[in-house]
């Protein structure tokens, strides 16, 4: 048996693997920084929609805390809380809460709460609601979600934190009550969470972002 061809093929594959991975590694080294930057900027962009950049001066991307509360945050998993500070003073917290009972499963939200417990705003990050029916929670589809701005636990009161159909203050969409009901409930819960834990939120030290 002649083993020369075996070695030749192996060498060949080796050669190409080395060249290929070298090329990739080179590119990687030259782009890694930028890619990381991109990821950061993408998150910042959505945070900025909720909290204007002038309102804080800390590195909000890294000033993050992970908390767990199945009851109020809608998931077993740790939930990120980004903290905005100015001159070291707390300004607002952004909670990545989850509305677990959407029509087609969980709806992931960003709920920004000012220090005083009023809502700075709410955004939907990810959802699977029926397109054309439940997806009016996206800003690109309707302004519904902007309506949360400025609301708080007291405004409206407990009874108001429901969709109109259930006797509350918030509109439902025609033909779709489940989705808005879920979102309203999740936002209300996030506010409750903030009321219970608001203080601690700003006190703890940021955890390494990699811990997830």
């Amino acid at each position, binding site marked *: 048996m*002649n*083993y020369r061809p075996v070695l030749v093929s192996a060498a060949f594959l080796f050669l190409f693997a080395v060249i290929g991975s070298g090329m990739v590694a080179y590119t990687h*080294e030259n782009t890694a920084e930028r890619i990381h930057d991109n990821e950061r900027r993408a998150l910042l962009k959505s945070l900025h929609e909720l909290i204007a950049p002038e309102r804080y001066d800390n590195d909000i991307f890294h000033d993050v805390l992970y908390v767990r509360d199945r009851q109020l945050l809608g998931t077993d998993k740790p939930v990120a809380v980004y903290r905005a500070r100015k001159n070291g003073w707390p300004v607002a917290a952004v909670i990545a809460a989850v509305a677990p009972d959407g029509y087609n499963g969980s709806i992931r939200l960003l709920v920004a709460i000012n220090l005083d417990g009023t809502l700075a705003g709410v955004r939907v990050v990810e959802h699977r609601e029926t397109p054309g029916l439940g997806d009016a929670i996206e800003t690109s589809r309707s302004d519904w979600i902007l309506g949360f701005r400025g609301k708080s636990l007291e405004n409206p009161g407990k009874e108001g934190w429901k969709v109109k159909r259930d006797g509350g203050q918030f509109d439902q969409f025609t033909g779709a009550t489940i989705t808005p009901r879920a979102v309203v409930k999740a936002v209300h819960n996030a506010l409750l969470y903030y009321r219970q834990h608001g203080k601690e939120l700003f006190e703890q030290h940021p955890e390494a972002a990699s811990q997830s």
Partner: protein
Amino acid sequence: MLTAMIAIGALAGLFGLLLGYSAIRFRVDADPIVDQIDALLPQTQCGQCGFAGCRPYAEAIAGGEADINQCPPGGEATIQALADLLGVDPKPLNEEHGEHGEKMVAVIDEQTCIGCTLCIQACPVDAILGAAKQMHTVIADECTGCELCLPPCPVDCITMVPVKRDISQWKWPYPEPDHPEIAEAGK
């Protein structure tokens, strides 16, 4: 960067050894696709496909050098069968090679035949009987209708006639979906 190159290189090298080794260890000879293709061709041996008979054409198809739609005697049925065998879409007969027609056999006009044996040399299946200077005849059952004997005949005594079907070879016709309204719609 170096780790990357070494890691992937080593992995690839290893795989290369594996494949190179198994290429030798598990060597097998080519599979008999040509035979399968040849079995589907009508064996008229007429050369209309552009090859010197059915088998060369089969080899060309297997080698990817010829398309499956070049055999007029086989017509759509053969193309369909080839497409099935090779797992490709059937396509219409390439008309550059000729048209699919009725099955024919050669008949030698024995009055005119001068016994030159030229047709015997042309016939791919030795279906013509006769010796020099004697009149020749075609064995109808063995003639494939390839028409190769026509051109060499110096006195044009060979004609092609449709194969005669007797009652035992009669085929029930395909039921005609003869919609009277088709004609109506066509107007």
